[in-house]
């Protein structure tokens, strides 16, 4: 009787082994969200650059983008193309991606996503051209030439 139990035990072990092996394998590689974000933002960058130069869009203290005037939001991002997105649609898409990026960096650096956004705002202010508009923490729009960032 004992050999029968032994054979059954071996069979069970052999059948179960592949299942355990499958569980221990690393999960199928997730699509690289960061790379996807970067690709989308990279494609959107020339359009946003143009909108910033045209002073339709400015950077904010929170590290996001916003139409400098609310009325600009409804304008076509490319006035020559009637099928193009509105400025609001471009801004919303960019901000969605930026928020996702802030979440990723926040996890990696162990800080709050809002802090990552603020750091992005500081970075954008430093890199902005003199005429570019920037929305301060109190909601006031100012041009870069009128702002003196003081590092601490």
């Amino acid at each position, binding site marked *: 009787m004992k050999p029968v139990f032994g054979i059954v035990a071996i069979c069970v072990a052999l059948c179960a082994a592949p299942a355990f092996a499958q569980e221990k394998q690393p999960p199928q590689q997730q699509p690289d969200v960061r790379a996807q974000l970067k690709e989308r933002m990279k494609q959107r960058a020339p359009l946003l650059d143009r909108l910033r130069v045209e002073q339709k869009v400015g950077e904010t203290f929170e590290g996001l983008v916003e139409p400098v005037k609310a009325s600009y939001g409804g304008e076509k991002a490319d006035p020559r193309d009637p099928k193009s997105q509105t400025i609001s649609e471009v801004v919303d898409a960019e901000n969605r991606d930026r928020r996702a990026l802030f979440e990723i960096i926040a996890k990696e650096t162990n800080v709050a996503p809002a802090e990552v956004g603020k*750091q992005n705002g500081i970075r954008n202010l430093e890199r902005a*051209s003199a005429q570019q508009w920037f929305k301060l923490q*109190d909601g006031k*729009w100012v041009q870069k030439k009128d702002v003196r960032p003081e590092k601490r």
Partner: protein
Amino acid sequence: MCAALVAAGACATSCLSHEVEVAPIEVKPIHVTVDVNVRVQRELDEFFDYEQRPGETGAPQQQQQEPETKEGKR
């Protein structure tokens, strides 16, 4: 008599000079204190490595315009 008084008064007032002092208008830059987080800045620099600094794109000259106030937007 009245006419003479009015004429004398008119002459007196016309001799007065008015000086209004206008203080020079000075636009001072807005100072913003920023706390730089080096680790986060490095991550952001790495991610946005495709960005170009202003002037590198050959973008057209910017126009001057006034944005509406916060109150006007909301």
